[in-house]
C-alpha cells in the first residue's frame, strides 16, 4: 500500500469536517471502548497478565533468530514450506510464484494487514490471479476500491446506508439497509468463492515455535474456510509474530480478543500445523508460510524494540483522542492510531511521515490499555527527539525550543520573563479575563478562549506560601 502519510495535515482537515465519519467514529468508541472495559475485568489479575504477556514477547524478541529457526524447523517437519521476504515486493513475487507453481487462477483471502503492507491484491491481479477478500469488512472495501481504516474493524468509516448503496449497485439486488440481510447477501455471494478457490491466503496472529503452527483468530469463519477448502494455503505474517509455546499463546489470547473487540474469546481460534494427511477429507495439500521483514529487524536491539511486542489488537487507536476524531485514513498507511504513528515512520521512513509522531497529545491512554505494555507515548517522544536531532523541525519550532531551553537554564531570567508574561496576559485579558487569540497558536484559539493566569507566577505564589 502506498504511503501517503506526508499529506497528514491536509487529510485531518478533511476528516474533521466529514459528518458521516464523525458519526461512525463515535460508534466505534461505544462498542470497542465500552466492550473492552466490560470484559477486561474477567481476567483474574490484569496487571500480572499484561506483565506476563510483555515478558513472553520480550523473550522471543531478545532472541528472535533462535525462535524463528525453531519455528521453521518444526513447520518444515510437518510439511509446510517456509519462505523469507525482505520487502513487500518479495512477498508478492513469492505468492505469484506459488500461484504459478500450482496453476492457481482464483484466490480467497482472509483479512491480513501484512498483505496490505505489500499491496498483494494488485500484484496478484497483474499476474492473472483473481483475488477475493472474504472478511465482510475487507470485501466491502474491495468492492468500493478503498483501503481499511482500522486494523480490526476495517470498514468502520462507512455506515449501513453507504454499504446498502454499494451492494445494490454491485450485486444488482433490491437495496436493503437491514444489517442481517446485508450479511446474508455477502455470505451467499461469497460461498462459491470459498468452494471454487484454488488458493487460500491468510495472515497469522501468531506463529507457535514449539509446534510450527500458524494461529489465526477470526469471528466470521472465513479464516477457517480459506485455510480448509482450497488446495493451497499461503499464510503471510511478520517475522516478529513468533511465540514460544501453546501456553504462551494462550496467555496472549486472553488479552487479545478482550482488548480488540471486547470478546472473552473470538468465535474461532484455529491452530494450523502442516498440510493435510493423505487420508484426510479436508485441508490444503500445500501449505506455505511467508515471513516478512520489511524493516522490522532494524527495530531489534534499538530503543524502539518494544514496538515489536505489538499483537495488533487496536486498543490503542480505539482509546486515542486523535484517532477518535480523524479515523484511520488520515494516517496515510496500513497502521493508524498510536501504534501506526510509531510503525509507519519506523518502517517507511521518518521523512515520509513527519507529522505522525506529533499526532498525539501524549495523554497516555494507549499505554494504559496496551495488553503487552508497549510504552507508546515514550516511543512517540523518542521519535520527536530524532526529528529534532536530524534537523527535521521547522525553524520556528527549533527556535522556540532553543529559546525555552536557554530560559530554563537561566533561572533568574526565567523568573523575570514569566513575571512579565503573566502580567501582560492579565492586562490583555481585560475584565473578561479571557484571551480570544494567542499569537502563534491561532489553530488552538480559533475554537476556544484562553483563560488568563491568576496574576502571580507559581514561584511568586510559592514564596508567599512559604512566608505565611
Amino acid at each position: 500500500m502506498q504511503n501517503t502519510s506526508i499529506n497528514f495535515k491536509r487529510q485531518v482537515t478533511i476528516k474533521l469536517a466529514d459528518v458521516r465519519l464523525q458519526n461512525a467514529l463515535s460508534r466505534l468508541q461505544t462498542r470497542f471502548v465500552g466492550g473492552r472495559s466490560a470484559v477486561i475485568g474477567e481476567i483474574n489479575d490484569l496487571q500480572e497478565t499484561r506483565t506476563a504477556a510483555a515478558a513472553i514477547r520480550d523473550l522471543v524478541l531478545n532472541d528472535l533468530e533462535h525462535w524463528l529457526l525453531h519455528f521453521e524447523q518444526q513447520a518444515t517437519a510437518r510439511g509446510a514450506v517456509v519462505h523469507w521476504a525482505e520487502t513487500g515486493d518479495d512477498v508478492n513475487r513469492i505468492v505469484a510464484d506459488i500461484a504459478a507453481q500450482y496453476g492457481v487462477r482464483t484466490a480467497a483471502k482472509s483479512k491480513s494487514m501484512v498483505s496490505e503492507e505489500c499491496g498483494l491484491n494488485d500484484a496478484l491481479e497483474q499476474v492473472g490471479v483473481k483475488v477475493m477478500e472474504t472478511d465482510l469488512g475487507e470485501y466491502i472495501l474491495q468492492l468500493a476500491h478503498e483501503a481499511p481504516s482500522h486494523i480490526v474493524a476495517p470498514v468502520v468509516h462507512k455506515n449501513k446506508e453507504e454499504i446498502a448503496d454499494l451492494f445494490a449497485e454491485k450485486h444488482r439486488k433490491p437495496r436493503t439497509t437491514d444489517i442481517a440481510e446485508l450479511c446474508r447477501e455477502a455470505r451467499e455471494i461469497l460461498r462459491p468463492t470459498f468452494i471454487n478457490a484454488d488458493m487460500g491466503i491468510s495472515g497469522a496472529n501468531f506463529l507457535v515455535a514449539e509446534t510450527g503452527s500458524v494461529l489465526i483468530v477470526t469471528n466470521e469463519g472465513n479464516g477457517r474456510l480459506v485455510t480448509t477448502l482450497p488446495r493451497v494455503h499461503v499464510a503471510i505474517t511478520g517475522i516478529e509474530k513468533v511465540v514460544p509455546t501453546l501456553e504462551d499463546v494462550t496467555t496472549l489470547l486472553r488479552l487479545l480478543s478482550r482488548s480488540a473487540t471486547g470478546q472473552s474469546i473470538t468465535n474461532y481460534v484455529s491452530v494450523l500445523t502442516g498440510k493435510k494427511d493423505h487420508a484426510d477429507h479436508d485441508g490444503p495439500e500445500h501449505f506455505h508460510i511467508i515471513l516478512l521483514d520489511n524493516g522490522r529487524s532494524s527495530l531489534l536491539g534499538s530503543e524502539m524494540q518494544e514496538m515489536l511486542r505489538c499483537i495488533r489488537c487496536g486498543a490503542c487507536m480505539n482509546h486515542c483522542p486523535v484517532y477518535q476524531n480523524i479515523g484511520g485514513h488520515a494516517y496515510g498507511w496500513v497502521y493508524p492510531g498510536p501504534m501506526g504513528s510509531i510503525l509507519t515512520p519506523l518502517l517507511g521512513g521518518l521523512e515520509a511521515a513527519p507529522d505522525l509522531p506529533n499526532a498525539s497529545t501524549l495523554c497516555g491512554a494507549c499505554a494504559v490499555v496496551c495488553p503487552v505494555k508497549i510504552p507508546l507515548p515514550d516511543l512517540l517522544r523518542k521519535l520527536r527527539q530524532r526529528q529534532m536531532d536530524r534537523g527535521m523541525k521547522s525553524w520556528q519550532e527549533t527556535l522556540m525550543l532553543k529559546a525555552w531551553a536557554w530560559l530554563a537554564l537561566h533561572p533568574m531570567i526565567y523568573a523575570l520573563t514569566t513575571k512579565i508574561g503573566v502580567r501582560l496576559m492579565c492586562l490583555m485579558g481585560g475584565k473578561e479575563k479571557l484571551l480570544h487569540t494567542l499569537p502563534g497558536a491561532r489553530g488552538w484559539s480559533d475554537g476556544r478562549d484562553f483563560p488568563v493566569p491568576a496574576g502571580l507566577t507559581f514561584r511568586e505564589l510559592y514564596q508567599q506560601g512559604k512566608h505565611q
Partner: protein
Amino acid sequence: MNARDNILGKIRNAQVRTNAQAAATGLHTETINRHLAQHPRGPQPVPPDNLLACFKERALKLSSDVLQAADYLEVPTLLMHYLSEKKLPARGVCWPSLAELPWSAAGLDIQSRPANDQDLLGVTGAFCAIAETGTLMMLSGTETPATTSLLPETHVAVLDPCRIVATMEDAWDLMRKEYKQPPRAVNFISGPSRTADIEQTVTLGAHGPYRVLVILVPFAEITNDAR
C-alpha cells in the same frame, strides 16, 4: 535462500551484544530449551466450582444453545425436537463415530460423511470443551472432518461432560497426553459465526454456522471414539 540469510544476519547483528551477554552466563540455549520442555503457564483464572455449570453459562453467553440428554440414544429425539421448533430441515451429515445413533427412528435423515456446501446440518463430537470461555475444541482428522462444523448452517456437537476442562492450558495438556503432536487443524469454536463489521452491530451467522447446539451426554463413549 538469500533473503533468509539476509534477514537472519540483520537480526544477529542487531542482537549481537544481548546474545554475547547471555552466552557468557552460559544460560542461553539452556533457558530456551527449558522453556520449550516445561512450557510454563501464565497467570491462571480462578478455577470454577463446577466445570459443567460454568461451561453452560459461558456457552449460552456466546449464543450457543445447550441441551442435556440422559444417554446417547436420546440425542436424535432431542435434536429432532430442536430442529422442528426452529423449523429447520431434519436432514444432514455426521461424523462416522455417530453414524450408529438411531437417527431415522427419530425422523432424521443423517448421513455419515464429510459435509459439503449443500448440507444444512452437521453433527460432530468434540475433543474436549473449555469451561473458562464456553468453547469447543475440535481436532481435525480422517474420522473428524473439519468441514462438518463449518459449512452447514447448523452445527450440533455431542459432548461428554467429563471432557470439560477448566482452561485452554488444560486442553493443551489433554491433547499432549493423548496425541504426540497437534493434528493439521485445532479449531476452538465459541458459538455461531458472527460479524460486527457493519456499524459495529453484532450479527450471528457470517460465513460459518448460524447456530451451534451443544448436546451434553454423560458417558458418551460413542463420541469419544472420534477423538
